[in-house]
């Protein structure tokens, strides 16, 4: 046997020491990894294990002036697939394709994509989501979610706007007030293993979503409905391209209605509202959608025409270059430099006072006033009245005024500007400027936003808007109100007249460019009551067919709207003596006619001068409407049932 020697032992000790030192170095390495780098690796590992599932915050509601909810949320489902958990891919593909009405290829792509979670479809109706859930397919996830929902579909569509797939505002108030409405998404933090399977009873972090705040707006859904009905009627009757109506409070700028026909369905904003003419490519469709979403009251400009004479008149009176009694002579045209500018009445209005000139909407009168004012003064008042800047309305994409450069304005331009041609403004600009002229001289900011409240009603913010006082004097404002009332009661705006209400207003008929297209824009701006305006309405009819005069087709629209909304706004009818006589105004008590013969009944009704309609054939009255002893208007229709 060979004994081990001393050097052997020494060497074994050396080997041991070497091993010891190396292990010590590795312990040092462990110290570095597990203490110095611990936080770094822990964080990386957490990122790997944690899955953040978002909980969408409910978007704030939009509530109108009457307390009606005009934009809210509806529960919908998001369907996702988790690749690792799917057990029967073919079954999943066929069921999802079927239930979600998607093509199999699209679903297959999602199902076969290797990712931790893949969205298949969002905004799925709750019923369909529940149905998919009931299949209990492994790897298919149904998450409930909110979708924006507009209870009135098309009501004020271009004003309210709609939201996109991430619940973000795309147009209208939805985008303007995004920060208030949006809310803050919450999330659920879960731990998963490498396959993406959630681990039960692993520590779960949860951040509750914060619901968005509610926006209270001045839009009144009833007034909006009235205005939309009137607009729809005239649009159909005149086969117009579109009709825009603004109804606002001229004192504070609150907009009560803004109609832009044709409206679109806010719950389906990506479907064109026009007849689909065959196949269109994506780009064309997008252009058409953008066109469909345009708010013409704000986004588009037009030549205001005669309604703009309100500004010329106000500037002339304020500057003192004209008085109400000044007399003018209209031969049917006026020559400015080398141009012969026609009046709309080819025969001419003859001799007339300034008031009559306004009532007749006589172009030569306003050309004369404009020339008296001069370029500097016209621009001074344009600036003073706020015409050269945007109105600041709380909707996105407001168009600015398209105006001549001051240095390029010669007498001809000055003359055409005086009666509202050769430049363009938006309808909202016109409504705002006229508001400041009739409200006593305060330039207001038109707006919808009134306040923001938390979901429980707690006030977050009241909006205030800039106002500029004394853009014209109170006296001039008062004079303008009385002149414009005369326009309606006796002048070109007669068709806006409603007995018992004092309405002021001005008509306009303008052309679209190029003028050779012979397309007209017919408009009317009115306000009531004339002595203290509480409501102002502007109706603009684009490209009406047939008769296109503003006084003939636009004034009745405003008249109809005022007829509906003035009583609604609590403005009482006060009749003058001549009105009572002329319009047969007054109430009577309905007599009892049941049981009488047809001839007896008709003789009684003749006394009262009531209109009657007979239903059925026969000689005896068996029923009547209204019933006996009801108080009715003298102009009411009576229905009698015969037998």
């Amino acid at each position: 046997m060979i004994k081990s020697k001393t050097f052997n032992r020494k060497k074994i000790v050396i080997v041991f020491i070497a091993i010891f030192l190396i292990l010590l170095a590795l312990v040092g390495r462990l110290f570095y990894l597990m203490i110095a780098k611990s936080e770094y690796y822990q964080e990386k590992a957490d990122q790997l294990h944690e899955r953040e599932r978002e909980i969408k915050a409910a978007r704030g509601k939009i509530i109108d002036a009457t307390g009606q909810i005009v934009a809210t949320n509806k529960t919908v489902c998001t369907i996702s697939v988790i690749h690792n958990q799917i057990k029967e891919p073919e079954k999943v593909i066929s069921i999802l394709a079927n239930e979600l009405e998607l093509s199999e290829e699209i679903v297959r792509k999602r199902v076969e994509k290797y990712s931790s979670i893949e969205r298949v479809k969002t905004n799925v109706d709750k019923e369909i989501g529940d149905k998919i859930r009931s299949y209990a397919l492994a790897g298919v996830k149904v998450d409930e979610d909110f979708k924006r929902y507009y209870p009135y579909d098309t009501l004020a569509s271009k004003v309210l706007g709609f939201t996109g797939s991430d619940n973000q505002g795309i147009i209208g108030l939805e985008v303007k007030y995004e920060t208030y409405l949006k809310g803050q998404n919450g999330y659920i933090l879960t731990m998963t293993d490498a396959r993406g399977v959630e681990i039960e009873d692993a520590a779960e972090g949860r951040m509750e979503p914060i619901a968005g705040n509610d926006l209270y707006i001045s839009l009144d859904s009833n007034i909006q409905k009235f205005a939309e009905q009137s607009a729809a009627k005239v649009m159909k009757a005149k086969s117009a391209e579109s009709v825009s109506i603004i109804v606002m409070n001229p004192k504070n700028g609150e907009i009560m209605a803004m109609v832009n026909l044709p409206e679109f369905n806010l719950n389906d904003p990506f479907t064109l509202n026009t007849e689909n003419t065959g196949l269109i490519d994506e780009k064309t469709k997008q252009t058409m959608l953008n066109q469909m979403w345009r708010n013409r009251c704000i986004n588009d400009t037009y030549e205001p025409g005669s309604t703009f004479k309100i500004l010329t008149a106000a500037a002339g009176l304020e500057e003192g270059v004209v008085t109400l009694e000044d007399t003018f002579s209209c031969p049917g045209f006026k020559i400015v430099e080398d141009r012969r500018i026609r009046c709309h009445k080819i025969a001419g209005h003859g001799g007339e006072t300034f008031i009559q000139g306004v009532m007749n909407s006589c172009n030569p009168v306003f050309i004369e006033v404009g020339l008296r004012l001069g370029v500097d003064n016209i621009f001074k008042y344009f600036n003073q009245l706020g015409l050269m800047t945007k109105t600041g309305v709380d909707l996105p994409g407001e168009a600015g005024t398209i105006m001549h450069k001051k240095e390029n304005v010669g007498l001809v331009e000055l003359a055409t500007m005086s009666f509202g041609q050769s430049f363009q403004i938006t309808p909202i600009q016109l409504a705002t400027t006229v508001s400041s002229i009739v409200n006593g001289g305060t330039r207001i900011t038109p707006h919808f936003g009134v306040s923001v409240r938390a979901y429980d009603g707690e006030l977050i913010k009241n909006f205030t808007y800039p106002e500029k006082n004394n853009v014209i004097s109170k006296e001039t404002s008062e004079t303008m109100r009385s002149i414009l009332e005369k326009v309606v009661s006796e002048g070109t705006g007669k068709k806006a007249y409603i007995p018992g209400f004092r309405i002021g207003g001005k008509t306009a008929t303008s052309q679209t460019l190029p003028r050779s297209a012979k397309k007209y824009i017919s408009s009317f701006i009115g306000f009531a009551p004339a002595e203290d305006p509480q409501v102002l309405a502007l109706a603009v009819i684009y490209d009406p067919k047939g008769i296109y005069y503003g006084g003939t087709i636009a004034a009745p629209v405003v008249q109809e709207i005022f007829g509906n909304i003035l009583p609604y706004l609590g403005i009482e009818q006060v009749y003058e003596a001549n009105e009572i006589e002329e319009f047969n105004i007054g109430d009577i008590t309905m007599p009892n006619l049941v049981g009488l013969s047809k001839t007896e009944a008709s003789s009684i009704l003749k006394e009262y001068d009531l209109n009657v309609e007979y239903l059925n054939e026969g000689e005896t009255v068996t029923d009547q409407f209204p019933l006996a002893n009801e108080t009715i208007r003298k102009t009411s229709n009576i229905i009698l049932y015969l037998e």
Partner: protein
Amino acid sequence: MSPRNERSRRPKKENYFDYSLLFIIIFLICFGLVMLYSTSSYNGQIKANGDSAFYLKKQLTATILGLIAMMIIARIDYHFWERFTLLAFLLSHVLSAAVLFVGSDFNGSKRWLKIGPLSFQPSEFAKLAVILFLALVISKVSKKIKQFRTMLLVITLCGPIVALVGVNNLSTAIIILGIAVILIFVASPKYLQFILIGVGGIAFMGIFIYLEQYRAERLKIWLNPEDFDKGYQTLQGLYAIGSGGILGKGLGQSMQKLGFVPEAQNDMIFSIICEELGLFGAVCLILLFMLMIWRFMIIANNAPDLYGALIVVGIMGHIALQVILNIAVVTNSIPNTGITLPFISYGGTSALFLLSEMGLALSVSRQVKLEK
């Protein structure tokens, strides 16, 4: 280290038995089984039809067989094996060659021989055979071992088996070579030539790495594991280690074993130990291995003859190299290579032969005379 105060018992000729080593072995085995269950239960649930104890059961069977083998071998005089050494050494060649042709694939490497329901890893057997063979050869030529020629001859004897194992399992080949170098180092009184061997070895490795593109790539992955897809395993191991902190997440609480560290019960098990038991647990485990290696040193230094001493040194080298390389790989201290952690990692063949080696070491310890 022989206890001098026991001189009085001399007449009884009482033999020594290293109970300390036995306890360390038993402790390591139990610890290993607990950790194996912790790391493998998730994989078992997924791959073995929901049986979370699938890997544990297999390992337990091999461990019990190994313990029986250990107790038997410990009772046999280690000189008994001298006559079978050459046969075992040749058999290891045959088996290692066989695995190249009829071996079964696992993760792309042919390392297993399937015999009925049992699978067997010849490279584990090869390590034991080499230890026994070299211990015998070197003890026979110990007088001439300082000659460079003899040394070269001894290393050449290992050449074929290193080559055969190295085809599929480079890391085990390196361990076999390492064991050979340690054995010659211990047997030889010289130092200088080993420094030369060391320098030569490093130079050889350098050339080796640069010659083969995929090894150079491994090197890049080692330096920046976050930039490479193939650095995934290393990176996941580091996440596990780093997230352990000082005291760990607690037994069974590892997140990384849930499929993030692939096959967490195999080579990367140390990273999960770090995650669950923290720096404290990891250092304790390393200390335990140090204690074991220290016991081997004591036994080797007190062995009755050079043959016995070299057997124990071989075993010591084997355990030390695997522990060092495994921990170095898991902590990304060296480029990634597949080496299991003795007594802890999953592997039946490994457990069986490691315990047999322990039996040999205990057998040598029995021959330690309490009095020289």
